[in-house]
């Protein structure tokens, strides 16, 4: 997934739209929590459509469209396709949009069990499985995270506004984790962690807070997933390893490929 040559014009205020599909809206809250930096950003861009943030809903075309969440209804899917047509640059915001994330954990047949329990068998859901935005449309760049990291959001905007092609982090969460001074979960504590195969830039907030890394920042370029799986299977049962790998990545191509190879 690389940004095509659709850099924005440095000399013009880009028209930006922020849309959201199915998700918890936590990443948009992160945009709001940019506070002063959102105001600084607002001077450089023209946010013409943001349901959650303002009462201004102009239609496209847009220079940059930010999409949070993942579509699970056919209305959402056609809106997504329409937005793609109407946007120079389409950016996925957060794990749901980039990876399918938490909504992607449960496939339809598992959801059915719960629908019946909660809403009775009379209920006919219209939803489809959550998959990454990239399963429907070309995504120019993904700002990863559950939720996204404010500094990363700012970095991506800074790069776009300077006429650069935003770049993915080539390093793993381990770089953030070492900077945070954490002991290594895998090497020292013998606990599972997806840090080594996950893109950095998250400041290792989870590991610093005592949680494992579940890979919400996306699989790092050319990550050695099979080796990590072998390592994790030595310190945890296969079910746990599976749970780690499918927390955010149940529907990503890297993990689907891994499952295919196992078969």
């Amino acid at each position, binding site marked *: 997934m690389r940004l095509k040559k659709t850099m924005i014009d440095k000399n013009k205020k880009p028209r930006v739209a922020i849309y959201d599909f199915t998700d918890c809206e936590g990443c948009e809250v992160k945009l709001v929590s940019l506070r002063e*930096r959102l105001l*600084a*950003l607002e001077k*450089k861009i023209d946010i013409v459509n943001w349901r959650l943030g303002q009462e201004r809903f102009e239609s496209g075309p847009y220079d940059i469209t930010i999409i949070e969440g993942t579509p699970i209804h056919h209305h959402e899917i056609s809106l997504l396709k329409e937005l793609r047509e109407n946007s120079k640059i389409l950016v996925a915001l957060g794990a749901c949009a980039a990876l399918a994330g938490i909504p992607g954990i449960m496939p339809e047949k598992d959801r059915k069990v719960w629908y019946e329990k909660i809403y009775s068998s009379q209920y006919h859901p219209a939803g489809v499985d959550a998959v990454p935005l990239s399963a429907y449309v070309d995504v120019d760049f993904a700002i990863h995270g559950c939720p996204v990291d404010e500094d990363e959001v*700012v*970095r991506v*905007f*800074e*790069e776009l*506004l*300077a006429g650069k092609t935003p770049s993915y982090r*080539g*390093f*793993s969460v*381990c*770089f953030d*984790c*070492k*900077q*945070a*001074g*954490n*002991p*290594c979960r*895998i*090497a*020292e504590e013998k606990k599972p*962690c997806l*840090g*080594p*195969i996950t893109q950095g830039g998250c400041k290792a907030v989870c590991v610093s807070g005592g949680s494992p890394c579940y890979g919400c920042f996306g699989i790092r*370029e*050319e*990550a*050695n997933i*099979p*080796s*990590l799986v072998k*390592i994790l299977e030595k310190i945890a049962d296969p079910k746990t390893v599976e749970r780690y790998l499918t927390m955010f990545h149940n529907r990503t191509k890297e993990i689907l490929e891994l499952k295919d190879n196992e078969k």
Partner: protein
Amino acid sequence: MLIIKTEKIDEFLEELKTNFSVFNIGGSLSDGGMSFKKYFFPPVEKIFSKTSTSNVEVMKAPKKFILLGLDLPDLEALTYLDEIMQNPNEDFFYLQKRKQSVVIGLTAENIDTAPGGDIVFQDVGETKYRVWENTAKGKKLIKKYKRFFEESDINAGADSDGAPQIPNNESLGEWSRSMRELLLDSEFLAKAVEWSRDHPIWDELGKKCLGCGICTYVCPLCHCFSIEDSVGLDDKCSRCRKWDACTLPDFAKIAGGHNFRPSIKERYYDWFYHKFVRGYNEYGKSQCVGCERCKELCPAGIDIYEILSVILKDYKKTLAES
């Protein structure tokens, strides 16, 4: 001989803290295994900034600070890193911070000279430390705080042949000792690692290594970096330098997309090659001090001593056969 009593050390440190920032390295695995390196060569460091109309501004050095607790391998690593950062070109930003620091080593090893740093406290048992004043900077600091130090004859109980009665309370682990023994013959290691390029062990390691970069981050001698520029929302431009790791996929990838080391196997071999071959070629010794951090902190459990042992064994065999 200058000594400091154990009970005075805390007082000395408290006193230092009133005048300087004091950072304690602790053991080799504290701070996530980050060594002294980050104080002179931070993981991410802004080096230049500029507005659209200004000239290039150079980031200023930090205030004077004290770095404490480097053990024997770290002191050796510091001496070596100083050399790397001075030759063949002077690394301005490393030396800028190095100049602002006073480094105090702490070892229980039996040393007959200070292996590096400005001052070394050598644990000689009986609640006292022998004090090695290694540099003018170190001497100056001790002179300023001389009330914490005293002259004492630790040879008082010398045995018949006059050797000092320093208890041999060696602090390094067995792994470090074995590794350091291999490192004594850097030339042989260089030849063996160069020879091993087609050894099947690199295929195995190419499968095993996660390429996460931890070994390079915790190594007190690894010093790869990348340059990262940004244009801020306030239009202020800056240039950072940031640790890189030669095990990461983009390390030798050029703008057109060609990657000169496309596989983990090639990248992992390059890490070894730099440590034991290129490094030896440039500075006359392996770029390793046997601190054990990379082995302790590798999530894949890769042990460089084991790898070298396999290579050396097969290299010796080849030499014997030819």
